[in-house]
């Protein structure tokens, strides 16, 4: 018989030791950091598998690290491309970007208000501010689109000049990542009843908030780059 299969472990019968074994963190031959991933479980104790909340935060910070590297690469490309050539033509950054920046900062504020409402278990307020955050996020994207239209109206397209190439590239890359944040917010809106009633962990809200605030910070950085390098 082929041995590719794995045993079905739907229901198991376990033998619990008479005396629980005490474990010293690190132990005599280990040391270093404590490794209590499942904290509290003694040997042979069976209970449902649960990924700790901090794993979601770790993964989110790791994801953000890769986004930082992506934008670091774009930035270094911009610096090198501008520095090496004499064909760089600066252009006026659309003024609507200031408004868009304010909208995105406001969305971060509204998300924090939503989180405080959740902490106080005011479900309707949480959902309402979540809607507001999502709407502000969409408004930001519309604002960015308007900035693109304004540039196109003045004949500044993707391939017009390396400066415009980087403008479209950076704003598009940020917008794409922000769209992912909007999808996450919509998921929270969809699950808001389960979250406020305690049926679903708050981790999703916390992790989405980290991402959303990071998107705000990333935009501030991108905007600063556009203002100073163009």
């Amino acid at each position, binding site marked *: 018989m082929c041995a590719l299969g794995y045993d079905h472990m739907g229901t198991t019968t376990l033998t619990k030791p008479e005396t629980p074994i005490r474990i010293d963190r690190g132990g005599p031959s280990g040391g*270093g950091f404590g490794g209590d991933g499942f904290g509290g479980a003694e040997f042979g104790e069976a209970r449902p598998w649960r990924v700790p909340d*901090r794993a979601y935060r770790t993964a989110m910070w790791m994801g953000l690290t890769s986004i930082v590297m992506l934008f670091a690469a774009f930035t270094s490309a911009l610096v090198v491309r501008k520095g090496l050539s004499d064909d760089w033509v600066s252009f006026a950054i659309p003024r609507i970007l200031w408004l868009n920046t304010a909208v995105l900062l406001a969305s971060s504020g509204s998300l924090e208000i939503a989180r405080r409402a959740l902490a106080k278990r005011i479900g309707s307020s949480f959902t309402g501010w979540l809607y507001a955050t999502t709407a502000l996020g969409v408004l930001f994207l519309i604002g960015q689109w308007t900035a693109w239209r304004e540039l196109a109206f003045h004949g500044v397209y993707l391939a017009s000049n390396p400066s415009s190439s980087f403008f479209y590239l950076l704003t598009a890359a940020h917008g794409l990542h922000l769209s992912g944040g909007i999808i996450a917010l919509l998921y929270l809106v969809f699950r808001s009843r389960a979250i406020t009633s305690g049926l679903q962990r708050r981790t999703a809200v916390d992790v989405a908030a980290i991402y959303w605030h990071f998107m705000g910070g990333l935009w501030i950085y991108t905007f600063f780059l556009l203002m100073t390098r163009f």
Partner: protein
Amino acid sequence: MAEVVHETEHRHEAPRGFIRRYIFSLDHKVIGIQYWFLALFSVFVGLTLSIFIRIHLVWPQAHIPLLDKLSPTGAPHGQITPEYYLALLTLHGTIMVFFVLTTAPQGGFGNFALPIQIGAEDMAFPRLNMLSFWTTFVGLVVIMLTFFVGDGPPISGWTAYPPLSAVGGASGPGQAVGQNLWIISIAIFCVASMLGALNFIATTLDLRARGMSLMRLPLTCWAWFITAILSLLSFAVLLAAGALLLLDRVGGTSFFIPGGLIVSDKIINHTGGSPLLWQHLFWFFGHPEVYIAILPGMGATSHIVSTFARKPIFGYKAMVGAMGAIGFLGFMVWGHHMFISGMSPYSAFAFSVLTMAIAVPSAIKTFNWLGTILGGKLRFPTPMLFALGFVSLFVTGGLSGIFLGQPAIDLFFHDTYFVLAHFHLIMGVAAIFGIFAGTYFWFPKMFGRMLNETLGKIHFWITFVGVYAIFMPMHFLGLVGHPRRYSEMSGFEFLKPLIGLHEFISLGAFITGAVQLVFLFNVFWSIFKGAKAPANPWEATTLEWTVSSPPPHDNFAGKHPVVHHGPYEFGVPGAEKDFIMQDSPEKVTAGN
């Protein structure tokens, strides 16, 4: 009195349907095996391409059956054109680097073994894990499509240097659709690798069993952890570079394309781009990629050498530190791939010194492997042979790196067969030996059957001698200035005397390639007919050997293991056996 506990609430149940169990599985073990099979398929594609390459080099007029069916224009009547030779080179390098050397050690063995070795039931994010695999699969499908669409695969090599890779179809066959697909495939692969990497990092940091401190992690886990960090940081940069290259090709931008370029008598309408910018971005990824390929092999080798020397690994903390140092330094040496690009001698000096610095942690690892072997009660099953082969190839390939890391010497060796010999030995073959070592070691756990040892040893010895027969002579080709990427020698007087050496290399390649069929037979025969594997056939100490072969769906049958010992407690005085399992409550310790 022991009391019996009935567990009825168990969220982590095995799926029942075939599709959910074997195709879109969330189980890290199945996903690891899927990655392993993907790499197995890819390595035989890459190997076949290299055989075509070797045939063409020594018999440029040869008619290779069926190749004209694959590409009527690239290989009319089965005879490879110079352009198609470059296309074969491109896909050989791309498939081997991305879909074999990056995929098997990390995606394959890392997925399969890491959660069990740290005492977890699965990766932190099983759905993300499944998504990573299937995204990788799509990347492979896209790269394979280049064989069948447009005028074939791109000819710009696995490094895809612009302007050749950026200016489109006018620059040669495969440079239109083929090059676009290449970029899309690599971009997809980058995303898959980053998703996989963050899963590895979160799993290692947050899902370790009780008592599994960082300094009790098997060195394999350290290797996968550090590799994941490298993947996370470097693939993002390659993704950025790929986006810029694609925009140059389809969006009319000029990131990499210089002005005034004439291709096939046509002036290219771009201005001011910098081909060197691509090289910086590519090699910022490309050098860490070498370590992404080989660090898991180092981890597996450390693990296997300690197990079969029946000795604790020599200098555990130094091994961890050395891997960290290699990973860290790996991000600061990309410029040594570009010594001839006209960079400032001061920059070249800095890159050179940093490159030499990598010799220190590399030497620490090598001497620690030797220190582990020294005085051990050595056993030589096939995984141990491949692990020792890894050490040998790592030393041989690493030594030529010291030559190439010096700008003055690299000026001569750059783009010669010497470079080919170097990176094939250290990044290609050494890493492949790490994969083979891992395969022979974990196969019993993966499939519940033992691989045939006799076939394994035949496979090892012929492969070991074969790869040296192939790649050692290439150093001599490089010494006399034989350039890379030349499809034929007949037109060059100074290359004609080297044809005999090329024939020897090709013969070595054919024999080494053929013996891989023995490995393939061994794998498939053993999956179905191999001897049943016990839980711990190697008398190893880490947690995967505490459970049945193959392990239960949730790894530990509903229990949560508690770790009391380090991962390499062999030959401990006063212990019942010559090894102590990591979860053994036995009080004696190695004190390492």
